[in-house]
């Protein structure tokens, strides 16, 4: 599919920020994805649900460059893209928070926010000796946290290992949402959290959306999904079984589609 075809497909509606068409990914004889398509529109929370082995993780990995699909097309704002590494997706503004919390426990909050994109001091110190602009990064980290409305992280010099689970998740989300990203992908952000911390993270997701940043949310937790999602993409056996909304279907319906008891 070419760029024009992508655009033709959506001339009537708003243009999706992220588009996937017919993604296929196999692992040996196991079919992870069997022709999955997905659209993500600006300012929406799109939840991806599905049973274990339904292809949720594979789908997300293909969207974020962690896996390369065997076939299928990806486009960002109508422009076809190919991701070979997570770095490629990041360059295009797709930031991911992985389930296993990709933060470095021993590093402080600011270092984690800037991990992999550190900034150097201006002038010869930075250019010649490659000295990091630690103060500047701490200041910018604070600014970003304030901008994102994350109030639970006051001190950006605390090592992440000293934070609570919810605060760590906030660090991970902040890193994904900061620095001009276009899409934030959250993989099971509430899986390891208590009730109050989950609510904080869900509020954070709403805040991101309200700031116009679209979010893809992978979750097992139906109440959480129905709480924050605008649309719900249901994976089943490597395919998209249905895309529903919390208004059009109930949680029971969603589970029924997920398990194959009914179709949408």
């Amino acid at each position, binding site marked *: 599919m070419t760029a024009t075809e992508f655009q033709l497909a959506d001339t009537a509606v708003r243009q999706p920020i992220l588009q996937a068409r017919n993604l296929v990914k196999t692992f040996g004889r196991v079919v992870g994805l069997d022709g999955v398509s997905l659209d993500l529109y600006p300012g929406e929370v799109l939840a991806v649900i599905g049973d274990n082995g339904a292809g949720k993780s594979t789908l997300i990995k293909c969207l974020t460059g962690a896996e390369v699909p065997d076939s299928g097309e990806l486009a960002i704002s109508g422009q076809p893209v190919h991701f070979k590494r*997570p770095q490629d997706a*990041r360059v295009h503004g797709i930031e991911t928070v*992985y389930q296993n919390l990709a933060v470095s*426990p*021993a590093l402080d909050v600011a270092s984690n926010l800037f991990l992999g994109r*550190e900034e150097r001091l201006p002038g010869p110190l930075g250019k010649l*000796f490659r000295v990091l602009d630690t103060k500047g990064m701490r200041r910018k980290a604070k600014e970003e946290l304030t901008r994102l409305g994350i*109030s639970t992280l006051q001190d950006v010099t605390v090592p992440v*290992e000293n934070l609570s689970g919810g605060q760590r998740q906030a660090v991970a989300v902040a890193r994904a949402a900061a620095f001009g990203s276009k899409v934030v992908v959250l993989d099971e952000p509430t899986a390891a959290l208590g009730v109050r911390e989950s609510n904080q993270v869900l509020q954070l997701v709403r805040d991101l959306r309200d700031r116009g940043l679209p979010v893809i949310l992978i979750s097992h937790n139906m109440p959480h999904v129905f709480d924050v999602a605008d649309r719900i993409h249901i994976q089943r056996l490597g395919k998209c079984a249905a895309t529903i909304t919390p208004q059009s279907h109930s949680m029971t319906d969603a589970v029924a589609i997920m398990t194959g008891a009914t179709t949408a």
Partner: protein
Amino acid sequence: MTQQQTAGPPTGQADLAEEFLDRQTPLSRIRNILHRYPALSPAIVLLVSVIAFGLLNDRFLRVENLSLITQQVAVVGTLAIAQTLIILTAGIDLSVGAVMILSSMVMAQLAVNNGIPAPLAILVGLLVGLGAGALNGFLVTRFRLPPFIVTLGTLNIFIALTLLYSNGATIRGSAMPGMLTWTGSTFPLGPVRISTGVVLMLLLYIAVAFILGKTAWGRHVYAVGDDKEAARLAGIAVNRVLMSVYLAAGAVLAVGAWIQIGRTNAANPNTGVDLNLDSITAVVIGGTSLFGGRGSIWGTLLGALIVGVFRNGLSLAGLDVLYQTLAVGILIILAVSIDQWIRKVKS
């Protein structure tokens, strides 16, 4: 949701209470400080042991003796820099001593037997160190073998290469050009005589401390050792970082080889292999975690000095060398136990 937001500040305070209030016993406060500054506990141990040995024997604190300790520490201290870099990435290098000896034999033999100018011989020795580091790094990153196994293998390979290359013969310093033994020369600094090798070691410490603390590469070394997968997902080229760490370690080891030639005034293919364990000892006593991602290069220098102080102090006290070994063994266990206790800070 509005309800939750209005209830925000009180819950925030409850959070604080849960997380911090139960830690505020004097003991846990000390632990928090030690956790925040990893080089602090070895610094205290060093200070206490220097005072204790000074009280035991009045010869210990004489400047000549203190200068001697620094010279005795120069080689292990240098190898420990390389070891720290690798242990920070959650690896371990059993081959540091062997690489150092191989490099020193190459330097000496090229200069003495092949008549190659000393600067060139040292340069080739540096390349040998880099090559050894490249081999270790290649095996660790490409074949995904555990560093312990890789360096156990290369340890034996480098020992064998050294003996094959040198025919097991020691080259005396008197036969070498002055530049090779230059690291053993001393110069006066006030009342003390400082050896060039010690200065070289300290310069390496300063350089590595700068790189680890102030550059993105340094931060990536910590991140890779802390959580490899997290580092990869953050966009760090993990294998490239690992490879560069092994290369840097190899270069440091070659400098160590030069210092060793000066210190012993010889290039002896049959010594120094046990230095790999001494270097690990210095790193561990210096508070760097064997699990990677935590520690400081200054802690390693302190660790090397602690070992040097213990060996020197005990021998001044007239104790058999076996007791030095015993003391070092106890030190290691103590250091790791204290380290574990400090680590409990993170709940």
